[in-house]
C-alpha cells in the first residue's frame, strides 16, 4: 500500500548525506578561513580575568584593594612527586588533604590542569618557588585576592567568593563559569557588574609543544578584558573606625547619614568581623565559624535587624499631628486619664513633651489624630484615622524599602488597617484602645536602624530626604550613580512644624532624657532617645536607641544608634551617638571622659539568655513570633489593662517612654 514511500525515505537519507558532504567540502576544501597556517598549530583559548575595582572612602582612603596571589594548578598525568610527605610539609597540608585534592583533580581530568591550592600569598609562593622545580606537573598562576587594609565595614562590603551552583544556574547571561569569583552580599554584590569589569578571551595559536605562535586570525574573535571600575563611597573611614571602637563589646548598629546628600557616612554592625577572614583561602573554615557565632556577626544589623522604634517614633507623631491640624505647638495634655505612666511630672507643651519624652502626652496626640475625622462610630473612626496616619507615616519611608544600595534591605512593618482587620478577624472590630501602643512606637511597628537614621535626616532637612546610599561615584566621584540617589523625596510636612520638634530635641540633649555627659560642647546635638521593648520577652534589658542630628542649623550629620540590651536609651545609645557626631564634626575627640566610659561598657553579657544560650537569631525570631502570638490572642500587648486603671503590665510600658 505504502511501499513506494520507501523511495522517499531512502531519498531523504541520501539528500542529508549529500548536503553534509557538500558542507564538508565547503569548510574543509573551499573555505580556508579554518586553516591554521602550519597544520601543526592549534588554537587555544586564554581567559583574562580583569582586576576587580577598588573601593574608596569619601576622603580617598582605600577600603578594599587587590593583592596579587598565586593559585597552584596540578596536571595529574604529568605529576611527579618524589617525596609526598616533604611536599605536604612544604605546602602545609596533611597527607589526606593531598590525596583528596589529587583525587578531585583526576576526576576532573587526568590531562587538564585543575586547581590544587588557592591563593598562596607572595611570601608562601617565594618559599616554595624553588622547591617546586622538583615536582613536575604543578603550575602556579597569578590571581588576586581582596584585601581590606582598614579591617572594617565587613557587613556593608560583603565578600568575594566562589560562585555557588545555584547562582551559576540562574544567571541571566552566560558570564560566570564554575570556579569564578563573585561578590556576595553588601556592596560587592550590589555593584558586582561594575566592580568585576569584563573578562577577556584571547585565541592564540600554539604549536605541539605549547609554544604560543601568535594570535589566531589576527585577534578577530578576541574580546579585550575591561578592568573593573573603582567604587567611591560616602563612608568616612576615620569616623567608621572610631565608631567600631565604641561599639566593641556591644551588640547593635551605628548608622550616620549626611542629610543634604543621603550619603552614608558610618555603617557599623556590631559585633563585626575582619573582612579579610572571608577573602583568604581559609574562607570556608572562617565562614562556618562566623556562622556559628551566637552573636551572628554575619547579619548586617543597620539594614537587616528589625526593632520597635520606641520613643524615637514620637518625633514622627509630633510632625504628622501638626500637619493634620490636630496638634499645635502650645497644645498641653496632663497625665490624667492616660493608661501610660510617665516619669516626667506636669503639663507640658509639644517641645517640652519631646524633651522629656512624655508618654501620656503622645497617647493623647495619637488619640486626637485617630479620632480627628469625627466619625461618630469609634470603630469606623479608628479605621479612617489609622489609614490617614498610615499614609502620612509611609512617606517617612517606614514599612517601605528605601532603595538602599545593598541587596538585603528589609521592609520592616508599618501596621495598616488591613493588618489589624486580619488580627481582629474582620472590619471595624478594633479601635483606638486596641492600637494605642503605636503612639509611643511600640506594638506592631518594626523598623531597621537605617530607617531611623533617615528619619533623623528628614528632620535635619526640615521635610525631605534623599534615599540613603553608600556609593558616591563609579569610576570617579559623582558619576554613574543611580538617579534616585539625587532625588529629593518630600514627606509632606510644612517646614514650620519642625521648629517645636527640633527645639524639643535640642532640649532633650541639653537638659532632658539624655545623660548630661553626652551634651558635648560645640556639637549642638539634637536628638531623641528611645527604649525598644525587649525586657518583656524574657530578656532582662531593653534595647537602647538614640536618633539625632547636629548642628541645629544646616545639619551635617544625622545618626541612629542602637545598642541591644543596654536598657535606657538616654545613656548607652546617646553617648555613642554624641561621640560619633563630635568626631565627624571636629575630626577629633575631646569628650575623653565620655569616650572612656563608653568603651568600658560591656553590654554583650546582657544579650539574650533564652534557654541558657545567647543568640541574636533567636531573639529576632522571638520578636517576630511575639507579633504573631499577639494575633493569636487577638490583642496587642499593652491593652490588657483597662485604660483608666493602669496595672503593673502597662506600668512597664510606661517606663519605656523616656
Amino acid at each position, binding site marked *: *500500500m*505504502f*511501499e513506494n*514511500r*520507501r523511495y*522517499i*525515505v*531512502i531519498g*531523504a*537519507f*541520501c539528500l*542529508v*548525506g549529500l*548536503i*553534509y*558532504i557538500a*558542507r*564538508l*567540502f565547503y*569548510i*574543509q*576544501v573551499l*573555505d580556508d*578561513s*579554518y*586553516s*591554521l597556517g602550519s*597544520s*601543526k*598549530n*592549534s*588554537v*587555544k*583559548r586564554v*581567559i583574562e580575568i580583569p582586576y576587580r575595582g577598588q573601593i574608596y572612602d569619601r576622603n580617598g582612603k582605600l577600603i578594599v584593594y587587590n593583592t596579587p596571589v598565586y593559585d597552584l594548578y596540578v596536571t595529574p*598525568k*604529568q605529576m611527579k612527586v618524589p617525596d609526598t610527605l616533604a611536599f605536604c610539609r612544604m605546602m602545609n597540608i596533611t597527607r589526606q588533604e593531598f590525596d583528596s585534592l589529587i583525587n578531585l583533580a583526576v576526576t576532573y*581530568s*587526568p*590531562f*587538564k590542569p585543575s586547581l590544587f591550592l588557592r591563593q598562596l600569598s607572595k611570601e608562601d609562593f617565594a618559599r616554595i618557588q624553588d622547591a617546586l622545580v622538583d615536582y613536575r606537573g604543578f603550575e602556579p598562576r597569578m590571581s588576586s585576592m581582596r584585601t581590606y587594609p582598614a579591617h572594617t565595614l565587613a557587613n556593608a562590603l560583603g565578600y568575594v567568593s566562589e560562585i555557588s551552583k545555584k547562582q551559576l*544556574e*540562574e*544567571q*541571566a*547571561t*552566560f558570564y560566570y*563559569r564554575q570556579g569564578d569569583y563573585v561578590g556576595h552580599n553588601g556592596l560587592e554584590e550590589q555593584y558586582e557588574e561594575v566592580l568585576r569589569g569584563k573578562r577577556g*578571551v584571547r585565541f592564540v595559536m600554539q604549536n*605541539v609543544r605549547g609554544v604560543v605562535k601568535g594570535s589566531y586570525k589576527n585577534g578577530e*574573535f578576541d*574580546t579585550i578584558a575591561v578592568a573593573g571600575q573603582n567604587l567611591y563611597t560616602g563612608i568616612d573611614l576615620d569616623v567608621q573606625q572610631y565608631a567600631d571602637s565604641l561599639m566593641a563589646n556591644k551588640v547593635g548598629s551605628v548608622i550616620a547619614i549626611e542629610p543634604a546628600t543621603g550619603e552614608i557616612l558610618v555603617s557599623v554592625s556590631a559585633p563585626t568581623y575582619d573582612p579579610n577572614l572571608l577573602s583568604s583561602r581559609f574562607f570556608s573554615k572562617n565562614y562556618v565559624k562566623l556562622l556559628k557565632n551566637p552573636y551572628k556577626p554575619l547579619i548586617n544589623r543597620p539594614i537587616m535587624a528589625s526593632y520597635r522604634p520606641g520613643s524615637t517614633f514620637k518625633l514622627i507623631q509630633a510632625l504628622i499631628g501638626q500637619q493634620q491640624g490636630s496638634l499645635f505647638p502650645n497644645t498641653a495634655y496632663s497625665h490624667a486619664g492616660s493608661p501610660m505612666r510617665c516619669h516626667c511630672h506636669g503639663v507640658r507643651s509639644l517641645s517640652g513633651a519631646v524633651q522629656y519624652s512624655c508618654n501620656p502626652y503622645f497617647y493623647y496626640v495619637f488619640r486626637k489624630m485617630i479620632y480627628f475625622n469625627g466619625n461618630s462610630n469609634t470603630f469606623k473612626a479608628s479605621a479612617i484615622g489609622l489609614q490617614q496616619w498610615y499614609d502620612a507615616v509611609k512617606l517617612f519611608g517606614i514599612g517601605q524599602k528605601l532603595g538602599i544600595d545593598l541587596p538585603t534591605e528589609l521592609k520592616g512593618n508599618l501596621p495598616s488597617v488591613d493588618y489589624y482587620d486580619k488580627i481582629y478577624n474582620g472590619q471595624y472590630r478594633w479601635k483606638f484602645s486596641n492600637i494605642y501602643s503605636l503612639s509611643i512606637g511600640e506594638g506592631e511597628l518594626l523598623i531597621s536602624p537605617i530607617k531611623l537614621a533617615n528619619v533623623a535626616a528628614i528632620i535635619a532637612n526640615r521635610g525631605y530626604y534623599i534615599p540613603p546610599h553608600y556609593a558616591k561615584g563609579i569610576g570617579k566621584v559623582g558619576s554613574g550613580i543611580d538617579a534616585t540617589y539625587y532625588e529629593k523625596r518630600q514627606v509632606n510636612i510644612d517646614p514650620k512644624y519642625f521648629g517645636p520638634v527640633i527645639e524639643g530635641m535640642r532640649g532633650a540633649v541639653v537638659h532632658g532624657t539624655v545623660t548630661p555627659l553626652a551634651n558635648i560642647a560645640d556639637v549642638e546635638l539634637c536628638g531623641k532617645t528611645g527604649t525598644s521593648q525587649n525586657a518583656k520577652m524574657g530578656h532582662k534589658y531593653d534595647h537602647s536607641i538614640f536618633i539625632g542630628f547636629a548642628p541645629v542649623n544646616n545639619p551635617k550629620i544625622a545618626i541612629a544608634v542602637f545598642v541591644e540590651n543596654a536598657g535606657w536609651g538616654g545613656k548607652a545609645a546617646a553617648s555613642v551617638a554624641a561621640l560619633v557626631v563630635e568626631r565627624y564634626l571636629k575630626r577629633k575627640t575631646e569628650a575623653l571622659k565620655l569616650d572612656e566610659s563608653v568603651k568600658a561598657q560591656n553590654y554583650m553579657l546582657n544579650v539574650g539568655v533564652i534557654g541558657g544560650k545567647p543568640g541574636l537569631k533567636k531573639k529576632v525570631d522571638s520578636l517576630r513570633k511575639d507579633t504573631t502570638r499577639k494575633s493569636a490572642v487577638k490583642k496587642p500587648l499593652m491593652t490588657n489593662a483597662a485604660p483608666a486603671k493602669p496595672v503593673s503590665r502597662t506600668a512597664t510600658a510606661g517606663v519605656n517612654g523616656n
Partner: protein
Amino acid sequence: MARNDPFARNIDWLTLALYIACVLMGWFNVYAAVYSPEMKTSIFDMSTDAGKQLMWIGTSVILIICVLVIDHRFYDQFAYIFYGFMIFMLLLVMVAGSNINGSHSWFKIGSFSLQPAEFAKLATSLALARYLDVPGVNLTKQKDQLYVAGIIGLPAVLILLSNETGSTLVFAAFIIMLYREGLPAIYPIAGITLTTLFVLALIFPLFYIFIGILVLAVVAIFLLPRYNRNVRSIAGIGLIGLAMVGIVAGVDFFVNDVLQTHQQNRIKVLVNPNIDPLGVGWNVTQAKIAIGSGRFEGKGFLEGTQTKFDFVPAQSTDFIFCTIGEEHGFMGSAIVVLLFVGLLSRLIILAEKQRSRFARIYGYCVAGIFFFHFMVNIGMTIGLMPVIGIPLPFFSYGGSSLWSFTLLLFIFLKLDSRRTSMLSRN
C-alpha cells in the same frame, strides 16, 4: 528447522561488514582523540577511553552472540515485557539514579555506569512493532494514532524528566517508520514545518518571519492552478499562514515571557551557540576549526592538534566526528558519511524484503534511530544543526550507547536471518 541453521549462512554480510568498519574506525578515532604526543598512551591502556572502548566492543561481541542464539520469536513475544521493564527502569533511575553531567539518568554500580535511556529506544521499537503487527491496526485511524503516540510518548516524557533532552528528541525518529506504515503525510510535513518555525522564531526577529510567511502565502496563491484559484483555497492558505504567524508569536512569547532567564538561555543556546561564546559557542567554533583545518586529506592518524584533551570537551563522545575531520580530512569524513548512508539504505532495503510486518516495522525503527543520530550528531559539528548531546552510532565512546546500537542492529539482523533461512528451505 530454521533456528538451528548456522547464523553465518543467513546473516546479511554487507550490514555486518559496515558495522565492523564503523566500530573499528570509531575505536581508532577514540584513541586518536585521547592520545597525547607527550604521554604516548597505548590504545590498550585501560585508564583511557580507548582501552575502555575495546572492552565495550568485546562485550558487544558477546551481546551479538546472545542475540543471534536466542529464538527470533522471543523478541516478538516479549516485546511488551521489555517495554514494561524499561518504563520501570526509567522510573527507578529517577529515584535511585546518580547524577552525571547534570542529568539524573544513570545507574552507577562501582565505576561502571549505565544509562537506561539508551535502551529505551530499543524497547520502544519492539513495542511499536508488536502493536502495529496486529492485523487491522491502521495508522489513519485516530485511535491507533493515539495508542502509538502513547507508546512513544511515555518513555520520552520520562527521559525528559531526568533531564536528557537529547535522548528525548531521538524519539522523533519513529516518524520515519510511522510514515512508511501509512501515517498520513501531513504529520511529518507538519512536524518539519513546526520545527523549522520554532527554530526560526528563536533566531530571527518576529517581524522578518511574518514578512516571510506573507511572501510565501502570496507565492502559494500565485502558484495555485487557475481552476483551483477560488475563494476557498485562498482562504485555506490564508488560514495556514495565520496559524504559522500564531505559532511563531506563541513560541516567542513562551520563550521570552514565560520561561525564566536561565531556561531561556538553555533553549536559545541550542539554536544560536554564539550567545555563550565561552561554552557551547566555543565548542561549535572549535569543532568547525578542527574539521576545517583537516583540509582535503587530513593531518594524519594521531597527528591532529586541535582535537586533543582541552579543546573540545566530549572529544571522544559527542564530538568524535571532529577528530575524523581533522585527522582524515575531507576524504575521511566523506567516507564516514557514505558509510552511514550506505548502512541506512541497506537497512531500508532489508526491511522492505521482510515477510512479517513486525520485522519490517522494527527495521524501519532501527534505520530511523540511526538516521536521527547521524543527522544531528554530524550536523552539529559542522554547524548545520543545534548542539544536542547525542552520540554518533558505533563511533562515539560509551558503553551504554554502543551496546544499545549493537542490540538494535543485531536484533534486526536476527529477524532478517530468519527470512533468508526460510527462503533457502523452500
